[in-house]
């Protein structure tokens, strides 16, 4: 297909989409309107289960099963990346050369490393109370570790990051979510029902029933998944190179 034909098809499709989308928008309830029936019901349901962060209640209580699906997408995507980025026969591994890091960058990264790890744990642990949770905190934790790569070098990062352990943690996080779901059956209710443990006191760390536990499982999975992902990409960039003469 020539570029000309492609641009014509794009123009026709784009104009069609624009017309239909604009027509649909004109029939939508106005922006900033007062009618949010699902939102109001979600807020009521969250307050009934004493979860202060309504978004966490939607994700890990009311729609916990959908979040299992989302977590599985993450799991599958990481698995796919690991398979795609493995070392092939024509490639060999070279030891990465230590690089010079400016003193200021090194100090800043090493001071920030413990702070970033504590922030990540805080964001995971307070997901049921304030904005944050397992997905966000997990990413903070994983990137915190990579401050070592910026502040020191690849060897230092590899010492604190045995990839096998993180691959195990990825699977264990996914498994923990499933086990917490199955615990719903044991408690005499349905899969992933928030009735396994008491709902606690509103706006305290131990409130929300299984929401903080599911947040921890997700936090562990996301942190490990991002570490594994970045490890594969960094291996490609730093360690693996094509064999000469092939």
């Amino acid at each position, binding site marked *: 297909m020539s570029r000309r034909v492609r641009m014509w098809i794009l123009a026709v499709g*784009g104009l069609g989409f624009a017309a239909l989308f604009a027509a649909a928008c*004109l029939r939508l309830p106005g*922006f900033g309107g*007062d009618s*949010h029936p699902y939102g109001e019901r979600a807020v009521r349901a969250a307050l009934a289960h004493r979860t202060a962060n309504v978004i966490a209640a939607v994700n890990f209580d009311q729609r916990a099963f959908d979040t299992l699906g*989302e977590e599985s997408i993450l799991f599958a995507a990481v698995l796919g990346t690991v398979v795609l980025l493995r070392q092939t026969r024509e490639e060999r591994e070279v030891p990465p050369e230590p690089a010079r890091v400016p003193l200021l960058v090194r100090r800043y990264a090493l001071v920030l490393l413990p702070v970033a790890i504590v922030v990540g744990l805080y964001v995971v642990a307070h997901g049921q109370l304030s904005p944050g949770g397992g997905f966000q905190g997990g990413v903070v934790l994983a990137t915190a570790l990579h401050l070592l790569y910026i502040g020191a070098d690849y060897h230092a990062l590899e010492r604190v990051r045995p990839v096998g352990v993180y691959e195990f943690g990825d699977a264990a996080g996914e498994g923990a979510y499933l086990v917490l779901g199955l615990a719903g059956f044991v408690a005499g209710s349905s899969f992933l029902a928030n009735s396994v443990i008491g709902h606690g006191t509103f706006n305290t760390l131990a409130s929300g029933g299984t929401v903080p536990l599911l947040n921890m499982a997700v936090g562990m999975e996301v942190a490990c998944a991002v570490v594994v992902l970045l490890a594969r990409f960094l291996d490609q960039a730093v360690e693996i190179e094509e064999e000469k003469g092939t």
Partner: protein
Amino acid sequence: MMSVVPYLVAGWIFLAGCYGLATSRHLVHAVGCLAVCQSSTYVLLLAVGYRDGGTAPVFSDLRPGSRPLVDPVVQALALTDVVVGATVTALLLALVMQVAKRHGTVDPDELSELRG
């Protein structure tokens, strides 16, 4: 009329991403365009959930019932969207790396022939 502008912005961002995808000459650029398409869904979701004078649906520093809240359901959907978007981008970039290694090019127009 003003009350539909945020929705139309979402559609415009989507079309801008589609244009980039169709005219892309570099696979990493194409993955970026796909991310642009996806970010239009964030705009649409958050626009649907907005309420005039509303605040975040988080009660850690807010008495329940004291202020109007924006819709938490679409915010949760946007969170889902962000996570899936990031992982799919990572997977696509891994594919791009393999394409670059196997075929020695990242121009989608030069990738038409099959190779075993």
